[in-house]
């Protein structure tokens, strides 16, 4: 019992981490798209808990609001609109390479685990304090994130906004039904 209490943090972390991975595995293995979406939702929530464990409360809240809230609803809308009940079985080619893919994944996982165990973690809990200090002041996590976003990380922040704009333009290019894009041109064989 004493062991459980002493290592509560570590045990909780590994439990949440295992559930995150389990949800991710569920996303790719479940045949029913709605089930897969729910597994994804579980992964999102678990990642939010991982953020809380690292004292990144703001990120956790954003994770739940944006991913579990917004993006998940969008996925479910799309699944319901296109009415996919079950995915059809994979082609023989894909099934043939599946063992190789699993082997590759396991090897990669083993490599990562070995690396993480052997490598010393330079970033300890000291990094947590950095999430809550600006200059000499101690502020809330949200304030600190906002401050960093608009000072030190201003350029990456602006680049992200352009990335989102580009994604939107791309979707419009594919979605538009315009004379310029649907003319005879060089089409597929009539």
């Amino acid at each position, binding site marked *: 019992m004493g062991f459980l209490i002493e290592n509560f943090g570590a045990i909780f972390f590994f439990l949440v981490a295992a559930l995150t991975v389990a949800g991710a595995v569920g996303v790719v293995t479940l045949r029913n798209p709605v089930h897969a979406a729910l597994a994804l939702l579980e992964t999102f929530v678990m990642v939010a808990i991982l953020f809380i464990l690292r004292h990144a409360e703001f990120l956790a809240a954003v994770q739940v609001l944006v991913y579990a809230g917004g993006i998940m609803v969008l996925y479910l809308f799309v699944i319901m609109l296109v009415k996919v009940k079950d995915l059809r079985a994979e082609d023989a080619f894909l099934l043939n390479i599946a063992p190789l893919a699993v082997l590759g994944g396991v090897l990669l996982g083993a*490599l*990562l685990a*070995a*690396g*993480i165990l*052997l*490598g*010393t*973690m*330079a*970033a300890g809990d000291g*990094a947590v304090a950095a999430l809550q200090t600006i*200059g000499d002041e101690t502020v809330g996590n949200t304030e600190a994130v906002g401050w960093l976003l608009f*000072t*030190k*990380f*201003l*350029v*990456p922040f602006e*680049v*992200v906004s*352009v*990335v989102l*704009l*580009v*994604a939107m*333009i*791309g979707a*419009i*290019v*594919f979605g538009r039904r*315009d004379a*310029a*894009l*649907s*003319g*005879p*041109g*060089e*089409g*597929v064989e009539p």
Partner: protein
Amino acid sequence: MLTPTHADLVAIAPEIILTITAGLLLIVEAFLPGLRRHFSGLAMVGVLAAIWARLHFELPGAVWAGMMQIDELAAFVDIYILVAVIFTIAMAGPFLRRTETEVGEFYALILLATVGAMVMASSVNLLPIFLGLELLSIPLYVLNAFLRRSQVSVEAGLKYFVVGAVASAFLVYGIALLYGATASTDLAVIGSQVASSGQLNPLVAIGLAMIVGGLAFKLALVPCHAWAPDVYQGGPTPVTAFLAVVPKGAALIVLLRLADGMDLLHISPQWVAAAAGIAVASQTLGNIVAIVQSDVKRMLAYSGIAHMGYAMVAVIVAGADGGAAVLVYLVAYTLMNMGAFASIAMLSEREDRPHFINDLRGQGYKRPIVALALTTCLFSLAGVPPFIGFTAKFVVFRAAVNEGFVWLAVIGVVNSLVSAFYYLRVVYAMYMQPLPRREPKFQFSFQIATAAAVAALGVLILGIYPTPILEAAQTAILVLVR
């Protein structure tokens, strides 16, 4: 307190100009679609203004809280990227009119991808490097599938998207591991930690391997090359030209910053072995498989794989010699490929059909200027003097020999000899074989012919008189190697 200064803003003036031009194109597209004919001109003005801004304003060094490093190296890379974009836009205008897909989004996406490449190449922090790569990649997924009615084009877009997503995942995982090991995403901090410990922490090694893997996808190096032929073949030719040059250049610069920043050559024997293996495999596989291609664009894809193999040799050598060699190689590679793809863009009937080498039979006398430009670029790609391709290979192999990698240089030279076969086969078809009975109908375009001719002239002139490029590259690389 960290507030943006005048120097910060001026340092990224070219990026800002390009972003504004892209936005302007989108707005004009929405409200004045009648102006579509002038879009390539507008995009061109934006790129020229960006070049002017980069040359005119002084280079401040570290800006934006140390995220970006706007120095001679960044300026060199920016200008080479922007020149490549000028060729792309020059090719794109007539091409889009021919395929009836001339809309503002095409140019806007090209310009925004350029901004991504420039951010990537001038950042010294893994965070903006990753975001720059995303900004470079997402427009290219769309642009490859731009001819929506052509199945090969959509296939190219989809393949590039899937592969690009995997590459991004590798890269971001590698960055996370490096951050876990060093508590920093700043290349200088990571580099100094690695240098002070004198060896690679296993976590750093794995993170680095994943980053190199992610970049290898973008560079189409063996074993991450499988996407290249299909994407090259299917995408619109101006996009292929852009894709062949700009992302590879930006990724090579990031690799160079990593290799030099951590002094991998001297610290890690595994890095040297792995990178040398990748370089040799890319050269050999690229050149051998290119021999059996019957489609010019697929052949150029395999040729691109081989050429990145040569460039990797220079990355391994690193230091002042290797770094300068990478830059010279990039300039040469850009000019040769732009000339070749511009010629191919004109020597094609229908974009969704393969560009067979057989269709080029007899074109040497039918279309002398374009055929001559293509011939010049192909000779240069094969590394024949006096063209710039020879100079670039010479600089790379000389750097390799000086650092004691004689075997890499020997393999490179042997590979160049093999490559001459398939490049010259195209030249043979153009000049030594008669026109086919059913003569292909190629539309002449003055603009594309000019682009091809200018690139070919550049290949020739800089091949005979390479001093300006060599000197600029040496000055630029001194920033990195202190």
